């Protein structure tokens, strides 16, 4: 059923508008229940909320804020790919960049986006992306060396902020991990490994260069 529904990919734009309708009807029925709080209006609102949320859960096709709640529901993969950004100083030395500099974009969102969209990017688009990533890396470096918080999300609440669903690897813990002079270039890599091989030998990781800027 789910695969059947997902097969209509070309209908996705229209389905997006329909999903707005699903949410709008939830709001309207709620307002009607608020205006006439007799059990009939309330029951209609409850029934609609139950029907939509259960239908979405059972067929596992989202209509957010009614959602599938699918979590780590696939079989574990044998190989995985992870993003690494490397800032380059004027001497050409590379330093691993803490991916929290991308916030409020979560690193896993950006890595997944890159995985599927990089082949479609023109050279100009890659340069635009590279410029943005370099700027973010440099701003993060400056925050680290000046003793401020690396993660933009922690600007207000500090370590009491709500983490992302998947914990970030907090790569930068000391100013010694970055150069004292600005980053002037950036490389993006995919790290690729076999899960069991890396379990036996932590060094078994392959690096694949995606692009370099400038």
């Amino acid at each position, binding site marked *: 059923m789910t695969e059947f529904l997902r097969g209509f990919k070309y209908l996705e734009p229209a389905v997006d508008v329909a999903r707005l309708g699903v949410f709008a009807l939830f709001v309207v029925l709620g307002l009607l229940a608020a205006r006439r709080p007799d059990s009939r209006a309330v029951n209609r609102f409850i029934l609609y909320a139950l029907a939509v949320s259960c239908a979405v859960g059972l067929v596992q096709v989202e209509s957010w804020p009614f959602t599938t709640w699918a979590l780590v529901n696939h*079989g574990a993969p044998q190989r995985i790919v992870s993003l690494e950004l490397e800032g380059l100083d004027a001497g050409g030395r590379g330093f691993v960049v803490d991916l929290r500099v991308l916030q409020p974009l979560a690193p896993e969102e*950006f890595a997944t986006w890159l995985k599927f969209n990089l082949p479609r990017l023109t050279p100009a688009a890659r340069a635009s992306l590279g410029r943005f990533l370099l700027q973010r890396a440099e701003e993060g470096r400056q925050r680290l060396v000046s003793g401020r918080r690396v993660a933009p999300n922690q600007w207000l609440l500090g370590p009491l902020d*709500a983490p992302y*669903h998947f914990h970030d690897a907090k790569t930068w813990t000391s100013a010694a991990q970055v150069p004292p002079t600005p980053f002037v270039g950036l490389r993006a890599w995919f790290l690729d490994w076999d899960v069991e091989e890396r379990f036996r030998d932590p060094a078994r990781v392959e690096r694949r260069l995606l692009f370099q800027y400038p």
Partner: protein
Amino acid sequence: MSAAWDRFWHRPGSPVNLGAARVLLAAVGLWMVLSRPDLPSLLAFPAELWMNVTPERRLRFLMVLPLGAERALYALLHVTLLCALLGLFPRVASFASGLLLYHFAPFETVIRTANPYLRGFTIPCLGLLVMACARSGDAVTLPGLWRRRAPPEAAPAYRWPLALVQVFFCQIYFFAAYSKLFTTGWAWLEAGNIRGHLLVLNQALSADPVASWGYALARHPALCALVAWVGIAGEFAFPLVLVSERARRLLLPLAALFHVANSLLFRIFFQNVWLLLLFVDWDRRPTTPPRPG
């Protein structure tokens, strides 16, 4: 059937518990937006990142305003959440908060997916809209506290909104378990699969996976299988808290423990863990009718 329906949804409920639910939902929502202080800035990210976001998807979440207007609306969201939390114009504030959360939550993921669940906004969004449609401002408000006004008596109008939010919350666990069997089948429960997930998540998310708790557990197949079976049984059983006081006493602490274990072993954080408090009876007045179960 009808009697069971009425008994579940329309029995007298406590205004204090409903007010507490409003406070919890607004507090979690506020914590989330304070933890994403410049979420609208994603609009200023390079256009390439937005290339898969169709006009229809923008329309779905009403992402049609320029950055300055979005920042103003995001500031307004902080104000409405604070008002909902304190009980200042609680229903209007809850309504505005719910709509604005619907608008802003997808910013986090929309370049990849239009389904921003597990980012901490979903239950506050739905829950605050339910609070807006109910008498959620009759108790646990700052003005009420200031005037030392006693909360009203229990009534059905205070029961169904809280029950509906609790059902939404239980669906998290139930459908998390269901989706594992729906997608992967019984193979999901095999020790090797749990071991694989432990290794993948710790290798991808830990600075030092070798020293992680996940690696330590992955070395014991029997424990991996136990984690799978206990986890999925607990998730399927969680909705029992809706109907049984005894189940609440057992499953609520277990759920909290489950989230701590998930964080340590699988590196997965559940931002809505505080909403387990939705099931606590905050109204200790002797006039409150006893709960069945």
